[in-house]
């Protein structure tokens, strides 16, 4: 199993299954589930093998079509991208088990169309985390975006309008990114990331390089919904079909944060961002702190569980952006660890919300009374996810927040540390409110149930939820080895955790 093409087999499996699902799903619906789960299972297994191989043999580069760089497209498999491959494929696998059930409930008769878009999205995400070519990144970014537009628009009521607003904002972000790549191409004449990194320091065009960097950053910030560019996210993610939400919410913004890290460290060098433009660096950390406070405050005002989770998601993105821009190794370790942890936490919480929606039909707070008595396992997993969001040891959320706070202290950015602590308190308020409603309030008399009956969530939706809750604890206990063996290798040279 040591073929050099393994990381592309990981990408090819979901892509082929997408079109197989489209063809065979028209004939009979029973083909869809086994095909998708087999493809994603293969991808997860392959990603694990790739990660082990990279840790053993070191990073490697792969030229598609055997055209040498800089003429051909190059893929980069280093510890960070192998970690992201494993993260994306395992989160997709867990989300799909739940999505199969909720799509059957919400979009009967159209599952083959839904899952075609879904699997192309997974293939696009898997490609995004491996690419080493700036324009290939744009193409894959747009592939993931277009499938997301389609998936969100399949929702009920106001979902098409939310998706249209997402189209406008997402296209602005992607076009800004394209402009930035255009500037880089004018300056360096090549599109390969490593090649650009080699040519940029020797150039004498500071304004043009700064403009290119600004366009790239703003484009990616619009795509990852950094406050105040986040306006599209709450509507889009909370009105998407449940099966789409459990997959898009954990992954899309985190992969975009990974892309920002790639652009900052593989195209431009840390010296360029942190030393030459130190004013910009502190400005962005201040902006991230403000973003955390505003997004957390907006989350307090929500009355619907999924909308509240989307605002918390916006705050988490600001954690990661601030952590990377802190300019020391501890902050960066915290940010990369937070990518992994936040994907798992968001997956756990959105899976719990999907299970609750399946059984009770609504996620408003006043319908959540006494839910513990009806769905004990779901609420137990939700509790673990909530504790992780707040940052309680030994769940994984504590450790990434610890590194972020330590990085802020070491860098002297007290405002970022204050914002993180206040945000943890606000998260505590948000989640304890729900836990109090679910655990301690009596079951309301007119509790409506959907035609799916009452009781615990069905097994296909419950098992990924429990697995992700256990994974939160496992990531918490195992974060030491994770940082030592993987994340330490992902930091740029000269930075230590």
């Amino acid at each position, binding site marked *: 199993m040591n073929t050099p093409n393994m990381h592309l087999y990981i990408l090819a499996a979901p892509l082929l299954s997408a079109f197989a699902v489209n063809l065979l799903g028209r004939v009979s619906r029973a083909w869809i589930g086994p095909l998708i789960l087999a493809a994603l299972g293969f991808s997860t297994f392959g990603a694990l093998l790739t990660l082990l191989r990279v840790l053993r043999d070191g990073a490697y580069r792969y030229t598609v079509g055997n055209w040498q760089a800089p003429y051909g497209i190059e893929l980069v498999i280093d510890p960070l991208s192998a970690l992201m491959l494993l993260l994306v494929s395992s989160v997709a696998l867990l989300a799909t088990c739940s999505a199969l059930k909720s799509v059957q409930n919400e979009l009967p008769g159209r599952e083959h169309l839904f899952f075609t878009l879904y699997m192309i999205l997974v293939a696009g995400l898997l490609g995004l985390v491996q690419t080493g070519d700036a324009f290939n990144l744009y193409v894959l970014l747009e592939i993931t975006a277009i499938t997301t537009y389609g998936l969100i*628009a399949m929702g009920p009521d106001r979902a098409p309008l939310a998706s249209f607003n997402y*189209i406008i904002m997402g296209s602005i972000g992607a076009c800004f990114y394209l402009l930035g790549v255009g500037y880089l191409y004018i300056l360096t004449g090549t599109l390969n990331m490593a090649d650009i990194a080699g040519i940029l320091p020797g150039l004498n065009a500071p304004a043009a390089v700064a403009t290119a960097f600004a366009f790239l950053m703003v484009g990616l910030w619009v795509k990852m919904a950094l406050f105040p560019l986040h306006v599209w996210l709450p509507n889009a993610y909370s009105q998407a079909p449940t099966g789409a939400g459990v997959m898009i919410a954990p992954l899309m913004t985190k992969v975009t944060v990974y892309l920002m890290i790639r652009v900052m460290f593989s195209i431009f060098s840390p010296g360029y961002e942190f030393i030459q433009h130190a004013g910009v660096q502190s400005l962005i950390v201040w902006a991230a702190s403000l973003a955390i406070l505003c997004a957390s405050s907006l989350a307090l005002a929500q009355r619907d569980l999924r909308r509240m989770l989307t605002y918390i998601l916006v705050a988490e993105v600001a954690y990661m952006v601030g952590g990377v821009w802190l300019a020391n190794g501890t902050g960066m370790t915290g940010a990369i660890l937070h990518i992994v942890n936040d994907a798992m936490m968001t997956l756990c919480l959105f899976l719990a919300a999907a299970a609750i929606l399946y059984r009770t039909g609504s996620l408003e707070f006043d319908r959540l009374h006494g839910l513990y008595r009806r769905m004990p396992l779901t609420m137990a997993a939700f509790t673990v996810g909530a504790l992780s969001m707040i940052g309680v040891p030994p769940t994984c959320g504590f450790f990434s927040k610890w590194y972020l706070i330590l990085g802020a202290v070491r860098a002297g950015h007290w405002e970022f540390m204050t914002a993180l602590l206040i945000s943890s308190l606000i998260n505590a308020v948000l989640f304890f409110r729900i836990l109090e409603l679910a655990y301690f309030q009596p079951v309301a008399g007119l509790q409506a149930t959907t035609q799916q009956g009452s009781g615990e969530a069905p097994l296909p939706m419950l098992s990924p939820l429990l697995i992700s809750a256990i994974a939160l604890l496992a990531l918490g206990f195992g974060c030491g080895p994770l940082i030592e063996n993987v994340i330490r290798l992902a930091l740029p040279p000269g930075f230590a955790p």
Partner: protein
Amino acid sequence: MDQLLSEIVAKYNYWIYVVLMMIGFYAMIGKRNLVKKLLGMNIFQTAIILFYVSIGGKRGAGIPIVDKHAVMLHGVDASRILNPLPHVLMLTAIVVSVSVTGVALAIMIRIHRKFGTLEEDEILEKIGQ
């Protein structure tokens, strides 16, 4: 003053692209009709495509289509041929633009069927009711 004027006149194509981009950007954000927003997005993307294509231009250069046998006999002088790489990159960008337009138009049909109108303020009014 003289240098400023020569800057503007010599790089007139870039100024045109900037104007086009701003028109498209304003339409995307400032207009309230969904079709006008979509057209603004198209104008914005077209301006970026034109920007890329103009990168490949060289003074006195010809189009990048050469005769195979002439090249095998005489060789090729790269400075007399336009750079075809940005053209090829923009083919991909055009495909992306067409796809996004297609998805957006399909979404607008659904919105129209549900709300009966394509003006954003009227739709928000109907949602609020």
